[in-house]
């Protein structure tokens, strides 16, 4: 309930020394301003990193073939081998922790000339074999049409999806590429989907043409072989353990010495992700600590002022107690003032902080390589900050209030 009398008491007390009240309020205001701004910027940093990672599965690992470095089972060292489609089936069958596995196969690019033709148009694009599972590991957005599916793989269909750059160069602006054909490396492919890359994690993929990897293997006479694949662990499973199991099975299948880890190239992407996220967590934590420190300084200022204010008003409080103000009421009133001062100042700090973060966002929006992307103030953070302010406001008022009622009314009345 809005209590006008309480309100008047609060404002009367704070108005008594306006400059002091304003300066104290500024302390809290800057505290919350700095906290909010730092957290907003921290969020911006994180957004920037996350957007360049896109939706790349963060629990993934990549394997590629190398030469063996140990002789094994009568086979010489420095031997070359290739992964096969059967490897994929074996891995899937034997490793329950494995979520997705997808070979990454490149087709020929045209080198200095062109590899793709349509009517008078021509271009040179990157050709990649893909699978529905690849889209789970390193996803793209389907703008229109559809992505490669299992049937495309099974039936070696000559279908492709194209990236934005391909569409731009091979089609007129108002043309719908779906259902149209492109001649790639001398073979006609039907376009079934238009895609947009979601990350630049595996290189820029705007100029990409993807086809079922089985089709690619067949047309390029790769047989059932490939050099590189990606795999992801199921949620909660360790990527490192998954890697061990994959190595073990592949080594057995390709007669590689069980200790010859160099024979199979492997890169734990998850490890890198964790490092990056760890870094951001520590930066975020540091920002919290700094912002909080500044805020605390402001709150200490409030407590200090409340102490002085209460001391100055000793006599007034003595009078009030003499005519019937109960201790709880006196304490409540001092805490009210303190909370009012901190929350009022803090609120404006919050508002200013949000504006500043917004301005930083606007300023970095247009830049081609922003360090900070979409910084924003989490509504939860704002509420937490306000909650903290109220809490500290109570705390800042509590000590002086205790002092105010500890002295006897008679001593308070005598105070000059």
């Amino acid at each position, binding site marked *: 309930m809005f209590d006008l009398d309480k309100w008047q008491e609060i404002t*009367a007390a704070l108005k008594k020394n306006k400059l002091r009240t304003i300066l104290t309020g500024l302390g809290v205001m800057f505290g919350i301003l700095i906290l909010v701004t730092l957290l907003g910027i921290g969020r911006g940093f994180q957004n920037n990193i996350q957007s360049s990672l896109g939706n790349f599965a963060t629990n993934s690992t990549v394997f590629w073939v190398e030469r063996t470095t140990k002789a094994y089972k009568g086979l010489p060292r420095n031997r070359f081998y290739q992964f096969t489609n059967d490897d994929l089936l074996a891995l899937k069958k034997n490793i329950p922790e494995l979520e997705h596995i997808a070979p990454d196969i490149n087709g020929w690019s045209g080198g200095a000339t062109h590899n793709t033709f349509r009517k008078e148009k021509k271009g040179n694009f990157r050709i990649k074999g893909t699978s529905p599972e690849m889209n789970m590991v390193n996803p793209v957005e389907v703008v229109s049409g559809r992505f490669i599916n299992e049937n495309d793989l099974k039936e070696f269909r000559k279908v492709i999806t194209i990236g934005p750059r391909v569409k731009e160069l091979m089609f007129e602006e108002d043309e719908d590429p779906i259902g149209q054909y492109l001649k790639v490396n001398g073979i006609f492919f039907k376009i079934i989907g238009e895609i947009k890359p979601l990350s630049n994690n595996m290189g820029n993929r705007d100029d990409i043409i993807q086809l079922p990897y089985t089709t690619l293997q067949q047309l390029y006479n790769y047989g059932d072989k490939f050099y590189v694949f990606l795999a992801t662990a199921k949620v909660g499973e360790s990527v490192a353990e998954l890697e061990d199991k994959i190595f073990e099975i592949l080594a057995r299948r390709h007669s590689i010495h069980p200790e010859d880890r160099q024979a199979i190239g492997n890169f734990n992407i998850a490890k890198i992700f964790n490092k990056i996220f760890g870094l951001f967590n520590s930066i975020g934590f540091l920002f919290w600590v700094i912002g909080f420190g500044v805020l605390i300084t402001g709150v200490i200022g409030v407590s200090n002022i409340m102490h002085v204010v209460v001391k100055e008003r000793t*006599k007034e409080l003595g*009078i*009030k107690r*003499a005519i019937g103000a*109960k201790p709880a009421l006196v304490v409540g009133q001092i805490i009210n003032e303190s909370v009012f001062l901190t929350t009022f100042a803090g609120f404006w700090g919050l508002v200013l902080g949000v504006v500043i973060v917004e301005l930083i966002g606007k300023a970095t929006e247009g830049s081609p390589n922003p360090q900070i992307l979409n910084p924003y103030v989490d509504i939860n953070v704002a509420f937490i900050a306000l909650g903290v302010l109220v809490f500290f406001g109570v705390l800042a008022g509590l000590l002086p209030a205790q002092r105010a009622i500890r002295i006897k009314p008679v001593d308070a*009345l005598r105070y000059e």
Partner: protein
Amino acid sequence: MIRLQNIHKSYITGTNKLHVLKGIDLHIKEGELVSIMGSSGSGKSTLLNILGLLDNHDEGVYVLNNEEIKSMSETKAAKLRNNLLGFVFQSFNLISFKNAMENVALPLYYQKVSRKKRNSLAIEYLDKMGLKEWAHHMPNELSGGQKQRVAIARAMITQPKIILADEPTGALDSATSIEVMDLLREINQSGITVIIVTHENDIAHMTDRIINLKDGVIESIVENNKINHTESVKIPLQE
């Protein structure tokens, strides 16, 4: 209404102990108009503060309105002060940032009386003091006599049983002092017990009974201008 038995009070400042009240026995009946006299430092204010529950006594029995006052919580004391007692101080003790009406209404705020009601009551009491036109003036715009009348209105607004006044005329000229005393006598006539601390003989002689304090004990009690020695005053334990 008030019964004191062997009341002692000492102040401890640093290592010194100052024994101010050295066994006060006193009985004040409902509706009396009493003054407490004595030289400076004799303990008049100390006694009044104990009576007003603003300070506590060290030893002895204090019965106020049939209730023994013994190590009570501040909350309880505040409630009793609010309901039972009204204070008038030498230095008025008005709240400087509240106008006359708000000052008078303040004790009712602590009784959670609505703003409208307590303000209209405050105006009524100010009117009785002849200060209706000054209701919206701040204390620093009032004369000493006016301030004291505002303070009396504030003391009266809760309809207390006892008014405690510590040198209510101490800061006023003699004409104004008489006015204030007339007011207090009027209040007493309405049945309220009034206790006035003063060192002015004229003021004391306007009361029914004069209690003379000296060195922390009651030296004599003057009743209707007749001297009774304390030794001869017997205080019955039961009312």
